[in-house]
C-alpha cells in the first residue's frame, strides 16, 4: 500500500514535469511571432527585434523554460551583485523587482548618458540619486553596469553606447536613446508562484487569473453537486430495472444527452428558457467582479448545460456497473436467502457498483474542463475556460501556460485522489 502510494506520487511528479516541458515547447517554440499580435502588422523589423529583446525572447528556449519554471533572480543576482527582492507596489499591490543595496531597495535608470539610482523610501516614494560612480570597468576598456530597471528586468547598460530601443506606450512605440544592451525579465518562476506577465493585458497573470478561477470553481462545483446524486440515482434505477421501460427511457435519453455537443445543449437551453419562457438571463453579463454573488440566477443556464453534458455519461457508466453487479452470483444468493429486495440493492449491490463510476468520475475532470470552455464561450461567462480560450487565440503564452498548468494539475491531482480512493475502497488492493 505505502509502496503503491509512493509510486503514484512519483509518477505524478514526473508526469507534471513532462507536461510542463511539452506545454512550454508547444506554446513558446511552436507559436509564431508574438510581436505581430502585440505591436500590430505595421511595426518595423527593428521595433519587433527591440521588443522581443525586452520580453527576453532572444534567449535560447531551455533558458526560458528554466526561467519560467524556477525563476531567474538567483541566476541574475551574481551579475548585479546585490540580492534581488520582489516587493508589492504600494498602489497596485503587484510585485516589483528591486535590488537590495546596503539595506535599501534600489532600481536604476539611464537618461542622457547618465546613470541614476532610484532609492525606495519607507513610505513607498522614490528618491533619485546620480549613480555615475557605479560603472564597472571591463577588460576591453568599456564601462558597463548591470542593474534592475523600472520595468522589472535585469538590464546591461554600456556607458556611451546607449542602444536605440523602442518602448511600448499607450500611444504606440516610442524610440528612446539610452537603452540597455541586454534584457533579462525577472521572474520568480511558476514553482514559486509567479506565472509571469500576461502579454495581452500587461498585468501579472496571477492577478487576472484568480477571479476567473473563482468563477469557474463556483460554476463547476455547483454543477458537480447537481449532477452527482442525480446521475448516480438514475443510473442505479436504470441498472436494477435492466431491459424494462424505465431502463430504456433513461438509457436512450442519456445516450441522446451524451451525443449532443455542449454548445448545442447550451443554445437550446437559451432558446427555451431565456428567449421563449424568459425566466432566466440568457447570457452571463458580469457588471461587477462580484456579480456572481449578487445575481446568482446568472449561473442557472450554465449549470443546467454542464449538468446535461455530464449527466448522460455518468448515468451510462453507473448503469453498466450496476447491471454487472446485479448479475453477480452473490446478489442471486442474497435474493435467494430471502433478503428484502431494497436491502439487497442498497447494502450489497450499490456499494460495489459505485466503485467503478467514482474512479471514472475522477478521471472525467478532463472532460468537464472541455465542457467548461464551451459553456463559458456560449454564455459569455468570464471563467477559466474563456480565459484560456482568449489567451490561446491571442498567443499570450504566459497566460496559456499558467491556466493550462493549473488545469493539468487539477486533472492529475484528482486522478491521484481517484487512484487512492479506489485503493481504499477496494479491499483486494488495500490488503495486497
Amino acid at each position, binding site marked *: 500500500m505505502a509502496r503503491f502510494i509512493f509510486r503514484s506520487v512519483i509518477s505524478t511528479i514526473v508526469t507534471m514535469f513532462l507536461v510542463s516541458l511539452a506545454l512550454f515547447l508547444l506554446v513558446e517554440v511552436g507559436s509564431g511571432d508574438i510581436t505581430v499580435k502585440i505591436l500590430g502588422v505595421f511595426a518595423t523589423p527593428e521595433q519587433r527585434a527591440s521588443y522581443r529583446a525586452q520580453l527576453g525572447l532572444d534567449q535560447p528556449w531551455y533558458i526560458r523554460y528554466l526561467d519560467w519554471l524556477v525563476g531567474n533572480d538567483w541566476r541574475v543576482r551574481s551579475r548585479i551583485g546585490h540580492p534581488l527582492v520582489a516587493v508589492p507596489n504600494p498602489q497596485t499591490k503587484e510585485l516589483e523587482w528591486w535590488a537590495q543595496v546596503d539595506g535599501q531597495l534600489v532600481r536604476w535608470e539611464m537618461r542622457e548618458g547618465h546613470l541614476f539610482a532610484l532609492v525606495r523610501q519607507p513610505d513607498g516614494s522614490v528618491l533619485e540619486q546620480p549613480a555615475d560612480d557605479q560603472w564597472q570597468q571591463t577588460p576591453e576598456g568599456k564601462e558597463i553596469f548591470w542593474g534592475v530597471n523600472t520595468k522589472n528586468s535585469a538590464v546591461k547598460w554600456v556607458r556611451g553606447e546607449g542602444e536605440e530601443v523602442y518602448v511600448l506606450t499607450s500611444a504606440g512605440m516610442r524610440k528612446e536613446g539610452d537603452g540597455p544592451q541586454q534584457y533579462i525579465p525577472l521572474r520568480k518562476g511558476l514553482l514559486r508562484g509567479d506565472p509571469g506577465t500576461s502579454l495581452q493585458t500587461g498585468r501579472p497573470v496571477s492577478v487576472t487569473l484568480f477571479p476567473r478561477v473563482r468563477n469557474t470553481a463556483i460554476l463547476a462545483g455547483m454543477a458537480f453537486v447537481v449532477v452527482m446524486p442525480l446521475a448516480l440515482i438514475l443510473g442505479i434505477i436504470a441498472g436494477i430495472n435492466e431491459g424494462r421501460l424505465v431502463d430504456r427511457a433513461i438509457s436512450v435519453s442519456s445516450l441522446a444527452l451524451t451525443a449532443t*455537443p455542449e454548445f448545442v445543449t447550451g443554445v437550446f437551453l437559451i432558446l427555451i428558457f431565456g428567449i421563449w419562457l424568459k425566466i432566466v438571463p440568457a447570457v452571463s453579463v458580469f457588471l461587477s467582479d462580484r456579480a456572481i454573488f449578487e445575481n446568482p440566477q446568472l449561473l442557472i443556464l450554465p449549470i443546467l448545460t454542464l449538468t446535461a453534458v455530464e449527466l448522460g455519461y455518468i448515468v451510462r457508466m453507473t448503469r453498466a456497473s450496476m447491471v454487472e453487479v446485479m448479475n453477480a452470483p452473490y446478489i442471486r444468493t442474497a435474493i435467494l436467502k430471502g433478503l428484502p429486495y431494497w436491502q439487497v440493492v442498497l447494502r450489497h449491490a450499490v456499494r460495489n457498483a459505485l466503485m467503478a463510476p467514482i474512479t471514472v468520475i475522477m478521471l472525467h475532470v478532463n472532460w468537464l474542463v472541455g465542457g467548461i470552455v464551451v459553456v463559458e464561450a456560449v454564455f459569455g461567462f468570464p471563467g477559466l475556460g474563456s480565459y484560456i480560450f482568449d489567451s490561446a487565440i491571442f498567443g499570450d503564452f504566459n497566460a496559456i501556460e499558467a491556466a493550462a498548468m493549473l488545469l493539468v494539475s487539477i486533472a492529475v491531482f484528482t486522478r491521484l485522489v481517484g487512484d487512492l480512493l479506489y485503493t481504499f475502497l477496494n479491499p483486494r488492493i488495500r490488503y495486497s
Partner: protein
Amino acid sequence: MTTAPQTIGSRARPNPLAKLWGSLSLVFESRIGTIGFFMVAFWFALALISIVWTPYDPNASLFGQNLPPNAENWLGTDHLGRDLLSRLMQGTQVILVKTRLPNGWVIPIGVALWGVLGSLTLGTLLGLNAGYRGGWTDQIIMQIQDALIAFPRIVLYLVVIAAMGQGDLVVILAITLTGAPGVARLARSLALDIKTRDYIRAAETRGESPWYIMFVEILPNARGPLIVDAMLRVGYAIFAIGTLGFLGIGLPPPDPDWGNMVNEARRFIYTNPLAVLWPSLAIATLVIGLNLFADGLREETTRYQK
C-alpha cells in the same frame, strides 16, 4: 469468427478487407447495431451524393436571408441567404469523405476518420510495445501516455491550433494526439493478455522478431475491441470537430462546418430558431449512430466470451 477452415500447409490467407468485413458484418445480428449502421450509412450516402449534387451551390447567396423551411429551401436559408440543406450536405464531406491538403489537393477519407486512424496507428504502436516488451519500455511509454492524458483535450486542441494555425491537417494531428493515449492503454491491456497465450510462445520459439509477434500474432487477435473503440472514437472526433468549429477555430472555409453553422445560426436565433436545429441534429444523429453501431458490435463480439 473464423471463416472457412484452412488446409494444412496452404499459405493462402483471407484477404484483410474480407476479414474486416467478417468482423463488422456481425453487427447485423444486433438490432441496435443495425439501426446505428443505417444512421451512419445515411450520412455517408449524403456525403457521397453531395460530391456530385447538392440542391444549390452551398456557398452562393441565392435567396432571402434567414428564411424558414419552405418548398424551395427544404431546411430554410442562413443569414447570408445560402441554402441550409446544401450546406448541411456539403458539411458532411470534410468530416467523412475528403481532406483538404494545404497545397489545394484533396485526398479521400474525412478528417474525423484520418484522425482516428492516426490515433489508432500511434496508439497501437505504443500500446503493443508497452504491453509485449514490458519493463522499462512499458514504464516510459506509460509515463508519456499519462502526461498526454493529463492534458485536458480542449487545452491540447487550443494549444496545437494556436501553435500551428487552422487547417484540416492540424485538426487531424490534434485528434491523433488526444486519441492515441486511450488507444495505447487499451492495446497494452490486450497485449498483456494475449502475450500469455501458447501461440506467442510458439512464435518466440520459432525465433520470430518482436515486431512480427506484435503486429502479426498479437494485433489480429486484438482487433475486435480496438475496432469497437475506434468506432466510439470517430464519434468523439466528430464531436471535437463540431466544438472547434463552434469556437471558430475548426476546419477552415470555404467548406461549411456543422459546428460553425450552429455558431452562425445562434446569432439569429430570434428570427430563425430552426437554423440552429439542423446542424445540431446532424452532429447528434451521426454520433448516436456511431455509438449504437459500436454498442451492437461490442455486444456481438463479446457474446460468446462470457
